[in-house]
């Protein structure tokens, strides 16, 4: 029973990643997972997750410049709500305040060429590493992209860039845009392993004392 499930999981992982696996690259879940962990550091950081919010469409605020402690958060002030269009069109548009560049005044609004919430299917707010991993790989939920297209999105999208250049007083996302793109490509090359799946694999392998890699 467990063996069948284990094999199904391996098959699932392989089939999902085979489309983009490098021709000769060995599948190394461990290294891939380590790289994913870095990506997770980025995507779960407030500069990203604060706008990758669920269907309540409410951006979040967190960080010391809001007078909050580490780990504390609150909803964006003033009852601001992105609405279903994630841009606030029907009530108060994001760009009423958020302009094309960061304000350089302390506590002024940050900005980017387009300012809006991420699409609702790309919710990262308080999601686990495994959940985000599955979402990022899933064309139904990542804007119809393959993994290389996701990497390019990170490389070129202005609002994504903002995460590393958030304006005075805000802590940037970890690493850099360039590194993020590299991590992403390297993770994809490693088979784009996701932690929860691999964890189950690992646990099973330990239980069964089977070799760690498939022949």
């Amino acid at each position, binding site marked *: 029973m467990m063996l069948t499930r284990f094999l199904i999981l391996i098959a699932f992982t392989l089939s999902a990643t085979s489309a983009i696996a490098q021709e000769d690259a060995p599948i190394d879940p461990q290294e891939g997972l380590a790289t994913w962990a870095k990506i997770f550091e980025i995507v779960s950081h407030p500069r990203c997750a604060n706008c990758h919010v669920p269907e309540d469409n409410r951006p979040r605020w967190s960080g010391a410049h809001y007078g909050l402690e580490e780990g504390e958060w609150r909803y964006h*002030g003033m009852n601001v709500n992105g609405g279903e269009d994630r841009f606030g069109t029907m*009530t*108060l548009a994001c760009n*009423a305040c958020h*302009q*094309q560049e960061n304000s350089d005044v*302390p506590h002024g609004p940050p900005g980017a060429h387009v300012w809006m919430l991420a699409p609702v299917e790309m919710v990262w707010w308080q999601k686990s590493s495994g959940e985000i991993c599955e979402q990022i790989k899933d064309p139904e939920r990542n804007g119809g992209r393959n993994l290389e297209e996701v990497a390019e999105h990170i490389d070129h999208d202005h609002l994504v860039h903002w995460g590393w250049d958030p304006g005075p007083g805000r802590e940037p996302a970890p690493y850099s845009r360039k590194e993020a793109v590299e991590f992403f490509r390297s993770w994809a090359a490693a088979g784009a392993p996701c932690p929860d799946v691999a964890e189950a694999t690992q646990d099973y392998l330990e239980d069964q004392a089977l070799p760690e890699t498939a022949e």
Partner: protein
Amino acid sequence: MQLTVNGQNYNVDVEDDMPLLWVLRDELGITGPKYGCGIAMCGACTVHIDGQAMRSCSVPAGQVDGSEVTTIEGLGSPEALHAVQAAWIEEQVAQCGYCQSGQIMAAAAFLSINPEPTDSDIDQAMSANLCRCGTYPRIRAAVKNAAAKLQGV
């Protein structure tokens, strides 16, 4: 740079990062939009740029080159009131009145896109405009009043 304000063309020579609010107030003498906070937290500076409500304290001049700006003065006048202004008068919303230019500009833009707002819509559209005098209940009533006017009811 060139911009149109309330239908009139202006050429201004200012640095790109001067906020539109101060172009309007100090360079052009258009004082309807007000300075309250300078960080887009109060909305007293709200104008329409190409029809969209925006907080002019945070819009750099360089961004509005070639744009059409409408301020409270251009929305309507005592002789020719905009429906939102008429509603504001009927409901006697204003106390000190300093925030009301921004409130009215925000409401006018909001209603032009969402003509039959729910109470929740109004709470989401108007809560970013700060009123220190506490006129909020009458603002709600005036938004509904204006919506009815605009619907021709």
